[in-house]
């Protein structure tokens, strides 16, 4: 201010805050409301904390978001459907606008579903959005699980969240089963009939269980209202509760991130929730909703009017459950009939029970237990916030692929009749193919996956030590040929060398220093064997010493003619053997 020197007294005001324009009316109102809420709830701190939370960015981190948004879409559309759906087995005669069923006797559940489909404005699209979103929910859960598994994101401290996720996945398919059983059309009734049969195969208690579930003999009129309570109240409540815990733990433990420049086990590199991530995640919700709505507008799903009302006598060809129950159906199609045993006047239907009652909980138990098994083998008690590249855990990646293969064989076996007519093959041959594949394919896939991972790791080593092949051949004046290798940027190199070197656990010597036999506990021997299985042929990252040696020898170029085994290659092979 030019006038300040004119009056000495102005010096006294030096350092005073200058004039501040009062906040605009809107800002004052928002601030006022925020302050009012904060005064009464103390929410400013936690909300501020959440808003400033940083999330790392990668497309595969959004797979879980697809599941979350599909679930929300199911909740919204499901609420709409409850306005008109009548969960009752009560008898009625259809007189709605779908001509081929007019005058047909049916349950009120089926009639109200027809009513929603044909006589409620927007009813059919909402029904289709609900069903497609349910399929996408279960699909997204599975691929989200793949991502978490193959990147090792389930390691400490996230084992609990992995278990919660496994329970969520199981609940999602139970919720789906309860949902598609409700319309009481021929297909869903066949599904309930099958479920009744499955429960009956439980040894000793089977028939009592069925009477309990159905409130009497099949079909009775209790099952639809009971499934309805489970579908709209019980399971969604547990789903949402567990889901809240699932996402709360993510916020608490911070999101994992892929290794990269500046990313360590102690930080998170990404964008804060407000404004970037909130905008992206919010936008992604509308993308997911839009894509599912588009599919629902174009592609028919579960045409219940075509199946007709349920009647215990007919059944339609192509009766399958929705895809997420397919693996259990497929197991039933693969199980041989001779597993049914008769003794002392009792029947033990292992041919059904193994696929229908044992497999489903088994799959989800194995899933939930895996992190604890791996931790027991590796004795790794440290926290991990950096993800692993799948190639850097070859045995785990192999196990995962073998598991996916077995699941896929089961799932595809459920479609053996559709394959038979669409591919012009014999259903018997297809079934035998899957029976053999169930035992042969997973070990083969394990082996192939592991070898591919090891090869990729070796190539990473090569790239670090010798740079990237440029494809440019250079001829020297004395007639020798070289392929020029381009040096890597440090940030590219970091990704290839950042992971930890691993080695199998060593069993302590059998005798101690006094020559006294020290019997290793059986569990220790098992652990050592498993550790060898995981890490015996590990390819470890290039060490700084190896890198320095490679540079020292000036191996930016590699001779094509007169190739002599380079010391680095030998050393890496030596590491492989060790």
């Amino acid at each position, binding site marked *: 201010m030019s006038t300040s020197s004119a009056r000495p007294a102005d010096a006294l005001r030096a350092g005073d805050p200058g004039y501040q324009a009062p906040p605009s009316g809107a800002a004052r109102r928002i601030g006022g409301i925020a302050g009012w809420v904060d005064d009464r709830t103390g929410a400013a701190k936690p909300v501020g904390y959440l808003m400033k939370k940083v999330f790392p960015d990668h497309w595969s981190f959004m797979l879980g978001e697809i599941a979350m948004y599909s679930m929300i879409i199911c909740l919204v559309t499901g609420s709409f459907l409850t306005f008109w759906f009548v969960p009752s087995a009560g008898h009625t005669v259809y007189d709605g606008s779908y001509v081929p069923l007019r005058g047909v006797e049916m349950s009120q559940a089926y009639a109200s579903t027809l009513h929603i489909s044909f006589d409620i404005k927007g009813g059919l699209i909402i029904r289709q959005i609900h069903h497609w979103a349910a399929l996408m929910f279960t699909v997204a859960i599975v691929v989200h699980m793949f991502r978490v598994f193959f990147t090792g994101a389930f390691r400490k401290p996230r084992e609990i969240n992995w278990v919660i996720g496994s329970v969520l996945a199981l609940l999602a398919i139970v919720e789906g089963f309860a949902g598609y059983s409700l319309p009481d059309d021929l*297909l869903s009734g066949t599904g309930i009939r099958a479920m009744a049969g499955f429960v009956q195969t439980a040894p000793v208690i089977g028939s009592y269980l069925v009477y309990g579930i159905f409130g009497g003999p099949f079909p009775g009129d209790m099952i639809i209202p009971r499934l309805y309570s489970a579908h709209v109240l019980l399971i969604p409540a547990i789903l949402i509760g567990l889901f809240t815990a699932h996402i709360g733990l993510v916020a608490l433990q911070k999101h994992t991130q892929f290794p990269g420049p500046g990313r360590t086990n102690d930080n998170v590199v990404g964008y804060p929730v407000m404004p970037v991530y909130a905008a992206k995640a919010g936008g992604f919700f509308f993308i997911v909703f839009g894509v599912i709505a588009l599919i629902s507008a174009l592609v028919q799903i*579960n045409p219940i009017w075509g199946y007709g009302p349920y009647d215990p006598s007919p059944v339609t*060809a192509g009766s399958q459950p929705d895809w997420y129950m397919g693996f259990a159906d497929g197991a039933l199609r693969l199980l041989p009939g001779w597993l049914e045993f008769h003794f002392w006047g009792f029947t033990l239907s292992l041919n059904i029970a193994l696929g229908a009652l044992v497999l489903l909980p088994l799959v989800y138990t194995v899933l939930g237990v895996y992190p604890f098994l791996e931790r027991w083998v590796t004795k790794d008690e440290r926290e991990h916030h950096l993800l692993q590249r799948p190639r850097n855990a070859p045995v785990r990646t192999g196990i995962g692929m073998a598991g996916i293969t077995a699941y896929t064989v089961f799932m595809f076996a459920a479609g053996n009749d*559709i394959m038979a007519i669409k591919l012009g093959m014999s259903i018997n041959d297809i079934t035998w193919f899957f029976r053999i594949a169930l035992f042969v394919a997973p070990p083969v896939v394990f082996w192939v996956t592991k070898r591919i991972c090891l090869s990729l790791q070796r190539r990473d080593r090569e790239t670090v030590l010798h740079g990237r092949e440029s494809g440019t051949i250079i001829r020297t004046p004395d007639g020798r040929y070289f392929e020029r290798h381009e040096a890597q940027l440090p940030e590219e190199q970091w990704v290839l060398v950042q992971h930890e070197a691993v080695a199998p656990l060593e069993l302590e010597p059998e005798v101690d220093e006094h020559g006294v036999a020290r019997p290793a506990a059986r569990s220790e021997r098992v652990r050592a064997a498993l550790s060898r299985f995981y890490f015996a042929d590990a390819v470890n990252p290039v060490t700084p010493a190896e890198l320095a040696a490679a540079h020292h020898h000036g191996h930016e170029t590699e001779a094509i003619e007169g190739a002599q085994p380079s010391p680095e290659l030998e050393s890496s092979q030596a590491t492989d053997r060790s």
Partner: protein
Amino acid sequence: MNALAARRRHPAAIAVLLMLGLFLTGALYSAFAPEPAEATTQALASQSVEEGKALFRANCASCHGVNAEGRSTGTDDQIAGPALAGVGAAAVDFQVGTGRMPMTQPGTQAARSDDVKFTDEQIAALGAYIASLAPGPEVPSEEAVDPTQGDPATGGELFRVNCAMCHNFAGSGGALTRGKYAPSLKDVSGKHIYEAMATGPQSMPVFNDANMTPESKRDIIAFLTTINEQENPGGMTLGSLGPVSEGLFAWVFGLGILVGCAVWLGAKAA
């Protein structure tokens, strides 16, 4: 050549090569694949039993025998063609009229074909000859197969009880054992549906007038005509094959599109 060498490490190179390879394989196959042989001889139109007999001997006798007595292949107890006395004109009209007979080659099951080898008059003559051997089901009248006189709702119930377990709820077809199948009923004429029920071709049971009245048959024809002609509420049907095709669609297109969007959003960050 230089341009090619410079681009051989392009990210799209593998995809382009793959497409090229697939295209070449397809093109070569279509160029060298053998044409299906034309097996039938041109026969003269005739209404008489005698003419039908002549047509039969020229076109059918090698499998069904010179006098329609049936023939064996000579290996084990396999038959080349069954005896035809008593199958009736309806069976001839169905088998020949839908292009199933004459079979181009022995197989698990004769497939429907749009390439019908005989004219309507020739088929009628063949039918007259077979009917002259022993009485059997006759070709139904126009009125018996008129869908407008049937009740589609009753027909739907009858269809679900009697037919859907093999032919699927929407008549899309289904699998039977060892490569046999119940064919799709899409765009099959009412006459042929009636004849199939009356004669029980191949693996199909016989639904004669004693266990399914002509009126019930007409109701079923009315039902199938209705679902064939109705527009599909809710969009594309994915083949009306049930949840398998829906699940496949969710995995391939639903997941594919959403992951594509996620990759696009993820790329926007960097």
